[in-house]
């Protein structure tokens, strides 16, 4: 990102003083660039200044002094960039040779291009007498931007990432369900209160009913009946409240995790292709299914239990304290020890759970890799290696779980032991107090009843420590997706495309995958209804160019204009509605053929679907299927041949009646006979639409109005088939090679 947010006319402070000394009077600074490597490719500071007279270079030498050099600008001098991986050079050349060169890292590439272009545009403006109108505006938000760079500072500054911990964000996420959560909380409080009543009643039963009879034969049977009725009644009330509480809270937690799943999936669908390129399917599936499920469990079981426990402990301590503070302290004394233990293992547990989550994700990734790729696995007889690969990740799951269990298995028994000692202390204290006459038998019984509950809850409370960590890890994995910003952002001030005419203009389009620039400034104008054939060797950047036109990615520099508007100004969905794509590997979703054809226009009439299928030459083979258009295809359905699938995908593109049509190797995976069928189908598709087609078989592109030869990220040649053949350039060579291949094959055949 270095260099993209900097303005070309504002020099960093530490250079500006130096520069002021170096510049002659009347000399104006046009642009500057900071190479960040020296000629041994070590990090070093330096600056290249472009003025209206010279190119100046300042290099920081040892001790902080700057060593300056300069070259006058003559007619022949020009700047150029040479990129090789993550380091690149900027070269100053004239007709006699290379004058100087500077090295920089890939992060500075855009800034370097800017300098090169600045020199060119400055020279052009001097030759033409008037400069280009320099007021470019951001296609997304309308703010003025640097014309050469094409990036908007206002848009580049993403929203600050919230630093709240993941679980707190989950709370924020649940705010929509606040009302029912409050209801659940009230129910919890009442249920806990109701459960506190029975031990409380044991005291009067023993002190006012049992002991008077035992010691003095006094009969308090009416009181006894009332107390027992009270016990029975609270049991029923507690049952009803518990049931209501559990149901309400389970509903809420299921609802929240469903909301979360829905939101994550919706967000995932909107992320750009770049995100999916870097993620493994299994991991994403596991995040959306397992992690939300885990959160749901946490909310519905652990959190409810925990809040109940906390309430119970607080209430119990209050009751105990109010009756007999000393005895109460005895009951509570293991509590701080347990808290201390929890604090100690917490960090280890969090790490453990995150590792376990990652291990689980990589195991599902193995499955998601190999099951769709099973044909390849079998073809290369790699079953045993795949089994081994799965075993390795499965073992990792086991070991990460095992590490956690080691902590756990020690932890739980320790807590149990502590609580046993706790009740022992209560006994010791209680007996001592009874001897002293400071407490009654009833009170001691009550204390024991309370402390038993207290301690049984204590253990489950400890489980919370791990549950929280586990849930936090899950929440983190989900919010990681939700925090991802699409690399293809929606415009801030959208221009609605409506139905486009289909004029495409590429202006100095550059694109980088990471640090590797694959398109080095393409310029091309395609008229509405024109068919362009993209030709060139694999890896030349043809598919990248198409991805940019479809806006699966955004350009690194330059702009793509459709009907004179930058594509970044259109809302993504509205823009893509104008584009039909037929890919090399047509993807059919699970569903009927009719549904698959109507994928881009789900409400299309049956007549329209049949018409599209007819035009795509798919109608007749569809009729031969057992259920016609109602036959199921896709992952679990009827298997279709490559050509058949392709024709369905052509019908799909036809049905949405796009203005711009993209054909990416649409016929390369089928035999020539089928190709002819598909070609005929494509003819119907291409008519009247701006079409950009990639093909390796040059014969496929016979009907193209113009052929564009792309080589190494540059446009090498443009022209009609016969023109290019005459030019004897790259196209002629490609054509020659293919002809030889065809003839060679024929020669072998006869």
């Amino acid at each position: 990102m270095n260099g993209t947010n900097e303005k070309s006319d504002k020099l960093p402070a530490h250079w500006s003083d130096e520069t002021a000394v170096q510049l002659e009077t009347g000399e104006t600074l046009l642009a500057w660039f900071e190479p960040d490597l020296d000629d041994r490719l070590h990090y070093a500071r330096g600056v290249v200044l472009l003025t209206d007279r010279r190119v100046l270079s300042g290099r920081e030498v040892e001790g902080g002094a700057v060593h300056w050099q300069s070259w006058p600008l003559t007619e022949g001098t020009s700047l150029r960039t040479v990129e090789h991986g993550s380091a690149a050079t900027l070269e100053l050349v004239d007709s006699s040779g290379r004058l100087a060169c500077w090295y920089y890292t890939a992060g500075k590439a855009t800034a370097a291009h800017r300098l090169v272009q600045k020199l060119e545009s400055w020279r052009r403006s001097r030759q033409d007498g008037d400069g280009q109108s320099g007021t470019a505006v951001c296609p997304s938000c309308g703010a003025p931007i640097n014309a050469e760079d094409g990036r908007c500072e206002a848009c580049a500054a993403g929203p600050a990432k919230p630093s709240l911990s993941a679980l707190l964000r989950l709370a924020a996420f649940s705010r929509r369900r606040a009302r029912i959560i409050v209801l659940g909380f009230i129910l919890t409080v009442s249920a806990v209160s109701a459960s506190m009543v029975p031990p409380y009643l044991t005291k009067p039963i023993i002190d006012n009913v049992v002991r008077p009879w035992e010691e003095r034969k006094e009969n308090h049977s009416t009181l006894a009946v009332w107390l027992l009725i009270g016990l029975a009644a609270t049991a029923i009330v507690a049952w009803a409240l518990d049931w209501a509480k559990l149901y309400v809270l389970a509903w809420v937690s299921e609802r929240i995790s469903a909301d979360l799943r829905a939101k994550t999936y919706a967000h995932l669908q909107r992320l750009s292709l770049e995100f999916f390129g870097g993620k493994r399917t299994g991991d994403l599936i596991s995040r959306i299914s397992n992690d939300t499920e885990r959160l749901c469990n946490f909310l519905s079981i652990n959190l409810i239990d925990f809040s109940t426990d906390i309430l119970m402990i607080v209430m119990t301590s209050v009751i105990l304290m109010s009756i007999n503070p000393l005895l109460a302290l005895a009951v509570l004394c293991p509590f701080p020890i347990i808290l201390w233990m929890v604090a100690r293992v917490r960090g280890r547990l969090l790490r453990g759970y995150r590792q376990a989550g990652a291990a689980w994700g990589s195991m599902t990734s193995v499955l998601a890799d190999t099951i769709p790729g099973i044909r390849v696995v079998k073809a290369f007889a790699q079953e045993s290696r795949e089994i081994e690969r799965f075993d390795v990740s499965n073992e990792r799951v086991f070991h990460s779980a095992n590490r956690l269990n080691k902590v756990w298995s020690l932890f739980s028994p320790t807590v149990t032991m502590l609580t046993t000692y706790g009740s022992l202390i209560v006994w010791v204290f209680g007996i001592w107090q009874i001897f002293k006459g400071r407490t009654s038998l009833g009170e001691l019984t009550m204390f024991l009843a309370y402390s038993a509950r207290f301690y049984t809850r204590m253990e489950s409370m400890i489980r919370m420590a791990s549950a929280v960590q586990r849930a936090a890890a899950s929440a983190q994995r989900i919010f990681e997706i939700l925090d991802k910003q699409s690399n293809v952002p929606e415009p801030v001030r959208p221009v609605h495309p409506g139905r486009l005419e289909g004029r495409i203009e590429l202006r100095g389009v550059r694109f980088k995958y990471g640090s590797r620039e694959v398109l080095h400034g393409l310029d091309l104008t395609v008229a509405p209804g024109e068919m362009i054939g993209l030709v060139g060797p694999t890896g030349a950047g043809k598919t990248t160019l198409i991805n940019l036109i479809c806006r699966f990615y955004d350009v690194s520099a330059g702009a793509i204009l459709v009907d004179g508007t930058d594509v970044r100004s259109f809302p993504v969905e509205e823009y893509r509605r104008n584009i039909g794509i037929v890919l090399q590997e047509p993807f059919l979703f699970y569903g009927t053929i009719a549904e698959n054809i109507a994928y881009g226009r789900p409400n299309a009439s049956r007549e329209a679907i049949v018409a599209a299928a007819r035009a795509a030459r798919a109608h007749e083979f569809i009729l031969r299927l057992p259920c016609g258009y109602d036959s199921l295809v896709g992952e679990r359905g009827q298997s279709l041949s490559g050509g058949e699938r392709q024709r369905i995908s052509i019908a799909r593109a036809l049905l949405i009646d796009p203005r711009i049509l993209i054909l990416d190797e649409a016929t390369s995976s089928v035999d020539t006979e089928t190709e002819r069928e598909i070609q005929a189908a494509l003819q119907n598709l291409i008519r009247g639409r701006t079409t950009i087609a990639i093909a390796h078989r040059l014969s496929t592109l016979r009907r193209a109005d113009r052929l564009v030869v792309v080589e190494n990220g540059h446009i090498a040649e443009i022209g009609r088939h016969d023109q290019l053949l005459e030019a004897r350039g790259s196209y002629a060579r490609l054509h020659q090679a293919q002809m030889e291949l065809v003839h060679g094959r024929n020669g072998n055949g006869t």
Partner: protein
Amino acid sequence: MEPKGAANGQAGPRPFGLHYDVWGRLVLTDADGRQHIGVELVRAFPLSDPQRGISICDCKGRELVWIADLNALPVSLVRQIEEELAKREFVPIIRRIVKVSAPIEPSEWEVETDRGCTTFVLNSEDDVHELDEHRALITDANSIRYLIPDLRQLDSHSRRLLERYL
């Protein structure tokens, strides 16, 4: 039998006639009077819209006549077409599921259909498809299809057996 087809462009086919020859083959006489022997009738949307989109194909599967809407044709021809379609369409409608042999596939199913009682083998649970709400299609090991037009109308025993497949 030369009915007049609806004359509104592509919606109605040009007039044609159907008859059986002495060998029992279906013969189409098209609008130009040409005869096509051994033609087949195919429904394009047998499940979602059986009454519309019927195609008459020759023995090689090439389409000869497209009938967008059956109801646009004269009644006698419609009857003839439906009789012919009924002859070649074998999709028993399941009225009741008596027994499913085992909870794991392949399982043997004993069902009562509109064409009588039968048993079939289900290869995988993926062969039970819920078409749209309340409709299900079962494909057996021999690719014979069985239709359940309304799941709600099955008795509770059948529904319970079917539950885990949907």
